[in-house]
C-alpha cells in the first residue's frame, strides 16, 4: 500500500491502482483504492487528472493552494474543509509538472438520484442548477425542492464559503450553476468544487485564467468583450466573485422558468424580502466597488 509523508506533492506512480469514476471536459477522476493520506487515513480521496491536452501545468501554483490549507486557523479549518473541495496534494508527472491533484471525495449527501423520463435512475452531483428549477420538475424527477427557509440557509452557507475564501485573499473565479453543490439534509449547506481553479489574490490562477461561465458574466466582462478586450474579459477578482454571489442568491431564491439566465432582481422584487432585494441591487450593479462583501451577505442571512 502506498503511503506518503507530509510533502504537498506525490508522484503518480506512487498512487497504486487508479479506477476511473468520472470524466469531464478538462480532467478525469479516479478512485485510489491503494492510497491514503497519512494525516487522515480514513478520509476518502480521489485523483483528478488533468487531460493531456491541457498539460503541462506548472506544479508551483497548485502547491501553493495545497499549502494554503495547512495555514488556515484551526477554528476555521473544519468549516473550510466541509464547504470547499480543496486540493490536498499535487500529483506530479514524470517531468515534474503537475498531472493533477488529490481531492477529498465528494460526500454522498451532495449527490441526487434523478428519475429520468425513461425511468432510469441516474446519480448526479447536486449542482445548484437544480435549485433554479420549479417544483414540478423536482417532483417529476424525485429530487428535493427546498422551501424558502432552506433556501435562505443555503444562501447563508454559500456566503460563508465566500467569506472564508476572501478572508484568505483567494478569488474563487468561475462561480456557476455547475460548481456549487448543495445538500438539504442533515441541514442545508453548499460545497464549492473545482477549487483547483481558484486564484490567490495578487497572483495567477494555477490552471490559467478560467473563463466566466455564460450567464454568470459580470457587466465589466460583457463590456470588455464588446470592445474585443479578451484580457479584460477574463479578469476575475473579489468584485466579480461578489457579483456572482449575488446572482447565485437571486437564482436560489427565485426558482422557475428563466431563472438560470436572469440577472435582474426587479423581476422577482415582489417575492424577495426588501433588505435582500436591496443587497441584490447593489451586488448586480455595474459598479464593482459598490457590491456588498460576502461578509455583508452572511450577516444578513444570520440576522
Amino acid at each position, binding site marked *: 500500500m502506498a503511503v506518503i509523508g507530509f510533502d504537498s506533492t506525490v508522484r503518480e506512480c506512487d498512487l497504486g491502482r487508479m479506477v476511473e469514476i468520472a470524466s469531464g*471536459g478538462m480532467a478525469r477522476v479516479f478512485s485510489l483504492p491503494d492510497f491514503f493520506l497519512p494525516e487522515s487515513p480514513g478520509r476518502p480521496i480521489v485523483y483528478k487528472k488533468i487531460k493531456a491536452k491541457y498539460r503541462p501545468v506548472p506544479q508551483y501554483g497548485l502547491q501553493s493552494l495545497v499549502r494554503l490549507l495547512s495555514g488556515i486557523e484551526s477554528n476555521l479549518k473544519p468549516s473550510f474543509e466541509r464547504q470547499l473541495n480543496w486540493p490536498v496534494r499535487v500529483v506530479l508527472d514524470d517531468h515534474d509538472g503537475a498531472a493533477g491533484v488529490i481531492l477529498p471525495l465528494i460526500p454522498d449527501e451532495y449527490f441526487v438520484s434523478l428519475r429520468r423520463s*425513461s425511468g432510469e435512475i*441516474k446519480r448526479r452531483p447536486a449542482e445548484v442548477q437544480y435549485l433554479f*428549477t420549479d417544483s414540478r*420538475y423536482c417532483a417529476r424527477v424525485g429530487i428535493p425542492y427546498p422551501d424558502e427557509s432552506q433556501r435562505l440557509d443555503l444562501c447563508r452557507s454559500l456566503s460563508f464559503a465566500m467569506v472564508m475564501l476572501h478572508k484568505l485573499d483567494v478569488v474563487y473565479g468561475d462561480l456557476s450553476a455547475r460548481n456549487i453543490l448543495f445538500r438539504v439534509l442533515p441541514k442545508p449547506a453548499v460545497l464549492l468544487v473545482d477549487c483547483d481553479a481558484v486564484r490567490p489574490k495578487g497572483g495567477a490562477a494555477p490552471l490559467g485564467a478560467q473563463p466566466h461561465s*455564460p*450567464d454568470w458574466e459580470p457587466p465589466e466582462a460583457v463590456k470588455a468583450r464588446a470592445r474585443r478586450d479578451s484580457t479584460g474579459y477574463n479578469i476575475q477578482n473579489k468584485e466579480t466573485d461578489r457579483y456572482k454571489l449575488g446572482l447565485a442568491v437571486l437564482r436560489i431564491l427565485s426558482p422557475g*422558468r*428563466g431563472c438560470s439566465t436572469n440577472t*435582474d432582481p426587479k423581476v422577482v422584487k415582489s417575492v424577495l424580502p426588501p433588505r435582500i432585494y436591496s443587497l441584490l441591487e447593489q451586488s448586480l450593479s455595474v459598479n464593482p466597488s459598490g457590491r456588498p462583501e460576502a461578509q455583508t451577505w452572511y450577516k444578513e442571512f444570520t440576522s
Partner: protein
Amino acid sequence: MPQQLILPFYVLADVSYSMTQKQSDSGETPLDAVNKMVRSLKDAMDDHPILADKVRFSLVDFSDDARTQIPLCDLMNVDESSIPTLQARGGTSFAAAFKFLRNQIDADVRQVKADGDKVHRPAVFFLTDGEPSDEEYQWKQAFAELTDSLFNARPNFIPFGVAEAKKAVLDQLVFPVGRTRSFVMREGADPVAAIRAMAEILIGSVIASANSVSEEDGAGGFVLPDDDENPDWL
C-alpha cells in the same frame, strides 16, 4: 419572465424503408435507434434542467416528403408517452427534406421572435442511410436555398451518414464549412451503433452549445462537443 435567448435544434431523420432493413445483433433497426434518440435527449435534459431555459427541439422526418413529428418545443414539457414513434415510408428525397425544413425554420424563428425572445442560429442534425433519390441538381438547389446567406435563419448543418450513405455526398451538406463537419460511418460498421453515437454527439452539442451562449449579449453559439475521436466515423 425576462427575454430568453433560444437555441433551436432540429433532427432531420431519414425514414425511408431501408432504415428498417438492416438489423444489429440486438435485433434493433436503424429506425429503432432514431426513435430512441429523442428519448435519450430528453433524459439528458432531465440531468441538466437549466438547458430548458435556452434549448428548443424539433423532430422532422423525411422520405418522399417531409413531416414535422415534434414541433419546436421545450422537450422537458413533452410527456414521454407523447413522443412519436417514427414509421418507415417511401424513398429518400433530400430536396423535399431541405425545402420543408427551410419553411419550417423560417416559421419557427419568426414565431419565437414574435413571442419577444431572441433566437440563435438553429442547428440541424441530418441523418440518412442512403443516397438521395432525387436528381443531384434538385437537392443541391434546395440545400442552397436552405443555407442561402439571404436567409437570416440559415442553420448550421451537420450531416450524419450510416449504411449506404456516401461521404462524397454528405460532405457537400456541411454548413458552414470549417465550423461543422460530416460524420459518415465506416464501411462495415453497425448503423445502429453509429446512430447511438450520433445521439451522443447531439446531446453533447446541446449541452456544449447552451453552455457557450450568454444571455447577456448573445455571444457564443452552436458548437460540436469536444470529444475523443470515434474510430467508426470517417
